[in-house]
């Protein structure tokens, strides 16, 4: 969101906690995301009365019940549709969509795509745990090949979707990544909120019961600096341990037109050709969302941020133009077109076309 009038009475984290008992499994990554959101909202100056959390179905979609704002827990995959109606009905509302990899990319992939291409002014938080949690552990559209689950006892064979790549491909103008327990998550959320238009945030979330620790390879605190690339606008794409002198960077392999990891010697990243992150560079964004973890670190933070006019502004602006100076007299509307009058006396037509 953006342009929100700061409320007279500032809020605290407590003000955003609803009186509902949180029903996620103990140790679920959702708890950390909930706290991060509740911690961020006061810093945004958000007004609970003007904030609406909209969700679909799944573990993540219980989220609205726990936030002390307006909340609408809708049906599976369709939260973007409801959010569109809410925002077009009242553009002053600050709309957050909370979804998951199954909700937002499987049953609701169509709506996610259209929300992003239309650029509805809202935040989309997609909790990606690479599994169906609420239905007890079936593999999801983001599960890695070979994931064993109740429906894939021999391992899944279909290739997973990449949420960030999907969102960018759908025409999203803001793409960011974070993970549940990351201390940087509030900053990512703030950036998403500051973006005017559909802001898509993929949040890796640990499903402790059905897909435990699948993100540990990059999310574990130990060695995180080697496996996480936190992108910052205007700064070189560096990762690794500066203290040990083992600094690396992301550079462009000009011949192959791909990204490559380069060693940075004595802090001279320019010499190593490390790219300076420009959040408005769509080509680099395409490379970052496709950058495979393993050979590369996990790209996190704001990968892409280049606003365009929003759908709600366009629709309501067009409505305003269409309405200006027009009569709203219903009687006149009903009598429009080619009419004729029947008189009591002659019972014949008197054309007044």
């Amino acid at each position, binding site marked *: 969101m953006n342009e929100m009038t700061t409320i007279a009475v500032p809020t605290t984290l407590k003000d955003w906690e609803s009186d509902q008992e949180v029903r996620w499994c103990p140790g679920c990554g959702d708890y950390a995301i909930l706290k991060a959101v509740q911690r961020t909202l006061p810093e945004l100056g958000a007004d609970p009365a003007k904030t609406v959390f909209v969700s679909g179905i799944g573990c993540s979609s219980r989220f609205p*019940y726990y936030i002390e704002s307006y909340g609408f827990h*809708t049906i599976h995959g369709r939260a973007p549709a409801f959010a*569109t109606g809410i925002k077009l009905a009242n553009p002053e509302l600050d709309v957050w969509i909370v979804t998951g990899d199954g909700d937002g990319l499987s049953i609701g992939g169509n709506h996610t795509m*259209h929300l992003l291409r239309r650029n509805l002014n809202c935040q989309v938080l997609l909790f990606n745990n690479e599994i169906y949690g609420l239905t007890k552990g079936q593999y999801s559209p983001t599960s890695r090949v070979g994931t064993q689950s109740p429906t894939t006892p021999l391992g899944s064979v279909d290739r997973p979707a990449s949420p960030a790549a999907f969102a960018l491909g759908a025409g999203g103008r803001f793409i960011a990544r974070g993970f549940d327990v990351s201390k940087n998550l509030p900053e990512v959320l703030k950036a998403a909120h500051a973006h005017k238009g559909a802001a898509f945030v993929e949040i890796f979330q640990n499903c402790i019961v059905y897909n435990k620790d699948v993100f540990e390879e990059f999310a574990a605190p130990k060695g995180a600096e080697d496996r996480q690339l936190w992108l910052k606008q205007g700064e070189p794409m560096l990762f690794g341990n500066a203290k040990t002198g083992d600094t690396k960077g992301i550079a462009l392999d000009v011949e192959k037109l791909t990204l490559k990891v380069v060693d940075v010697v004595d802090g001279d990243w320019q010499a190593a050709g490390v790219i300076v992150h420009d959040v408005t560079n769509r080509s680099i964004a395409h490379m970052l969302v496709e950058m495979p973890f393993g050979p590369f670190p996990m790209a996190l933070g704001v990968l892409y941020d280049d606003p365009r006019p929003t759908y709600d502004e366009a629709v*309501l602006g067009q409505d305003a133009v269409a309405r200006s100076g027009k009569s709203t007299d219903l009687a006149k509307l*009903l009598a429009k*077109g080619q009419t*004729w009058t029947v008189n009591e006396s002659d019972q014949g037509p008197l054309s007044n076309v």
Partner: protein
Amino acid sequence: MASLVAEPEVSVSNHPEAVVVRFAGDSGDGMQLTGGQFTLSSALAGNDFATFPDFPAEIRAPQGTLFGVSAFQINFGSTDIETAGDAPDVLVAMNPAALKTNVDALKPGGLIIADTGEFTKRNLDKAKYDVSPIDDGSLAKWQVLAFDISALTMESVKPYGLGNKEALRCKNMWTLGLALWMFDREREPLIDWLKAKFVKLPVLADANIAALNAGHAYGETAELGGQLHKVHVDPAAAKAGLYRTITGAESVALGLVAGAQLAGLEMFFGGYPITPASSILHSLVRLKEFGVTTFQAEDEIAAIGAAIGASYAGKLGVTSSSGPGIALKTEAMGLAVMTELPLVIVNSQRGGPSTGLPTKTEQSDLYQAIYGRNGDTPIPVVAACSPSDAFDCAIEACRIATQYMTPVILLTDGYIANAAEPWLVPDPASYAPFPVTFLTERNGPDGTLLPYARDDKGARPWIKPGTPGLTHRIGGIEKNPGTGNLDYSPGAHQTMTDARKAKVDGIANSIPAQTVALGETSGKLAVVGWGSSFGPIHQAVRRARAKGIDVSHIHVRHVWPLPANLGDLLRGYEHIIVPEMNTGQFKTVLRDQFLVDAKPLNKTSGQPFAIAEIEAAIATYFDGAPSNAGGGEVPPNAAQLPSIESANP
């Protein structure tokens, strides 16, 4: 016009009180346009009328084929007209395929006007004629007036230098000109209309006007051996006032706008293109100044989802579709029931199942409307009986939705959506407003908020996001009867299920008692109908009563919940028949609700009932009246508005 009327005299058949004309041609021949303009001319002549556009699902079917035939039938007269007419008196056939698919419907002795210019070997082959029917005597039971309309049109537009193809496209105006002459109509309104239509292409306006005039002059001057003569149909007696023509789709759009105004709300309409419902969206996009916001969604589900979202945010959410699309919306309808938000869902029914008959009419979504959801999910259903009635029904749907905080289904059908009829323009001030109120303060004891507290109608408060101090969460999970918080407990589900049912059942208290459209409030036989079969039922009952038969017509607008007195009323008749364009859905509802012995009269040919079909069914209950052999079930009358598909096995 389909109004509930007193019983007038039955028409005398040898006096031209009413005439049925069918224009049939290739889908590229402009038959719908010709029919539409002829309709307007009938309106201006003061006739009452009803129309039936019958066109293929294909946009541009291959030229000259049987399945590419597009037809438009109009019944106009000096008496009350409530159907598009059983059988045409005049058939205008622009090519062999149009003749073949339509001629069997024509009354014996009826007039065929055929364009011989199109009766080429190639077109005859496409229509599967071995020899031209014009020459082989197979049309002997009708009068045939065959001449080269194509050539006459080409001749008339010669001065304008059009290409062959463009010149031939003026054929429909030539034909319309001839029809205007036949029925003693003014040409000026059509000429004005053509000038306006082709304001940017004056040469086309001139050419079309020339064709129109030439067709008219042909009637005036040609020696046609007495086959063609002027017929003058007197204006129909009608209630004084301002009239316009209206189709059901326009009427629904206007009714929704009026309903939103009466509720004091702006409207949000979410739709996805589908035949025959799209025209409602087409109408509403042009009414933005009335507080209408429209959204063409990515699919049917998003369309209803956005509409519910808008209702949640304080607008009147509306969505519309046809059967297959309604099926997709079903889960979201359940959410609207659960979250108790107002919503109007318009279903322009078409033939099913699945894709079925996209451009044909049926009443087979009644079960879907009343019962078609998971769970105990009651939704009130209002059914329109004609284009003009759709206006009032749309307002009624808005009233129920906002006053009872519930989704409401408004049923129309392909016939109502496309058909045109004269409409006595109502005064909006004559409708009682039903302004909504939004909750602005906490409504529970000790300053608590109870989003699921209920008023005396059983409705919960409408709380707009953005209202300070009233933050709360709603959703599709079962909830606590007061707070609306998640509550799966047995007591909560029982209480809430009961409350949702009681609320919708209670709507019966706010609707008018069931009346009898024609006839007595008890007696030997009641013909009970709903939806667009109103016209043929009403006329059939009227004709039967004129013969002294004790039969009454009951038309039910509120098909769910049913009017409180309907059961008692039905029990006052010895027999009940329920004509429906389905396999007997409303019959089953009546049997279930009232344990009455309602008998079905079914037709699923994609075509409206013929008056004669219902008359025949009525006759079976009375000795000495001509009966139909089949008993309850009336087979589709092949001669009555035959479907194009049936000619293409």
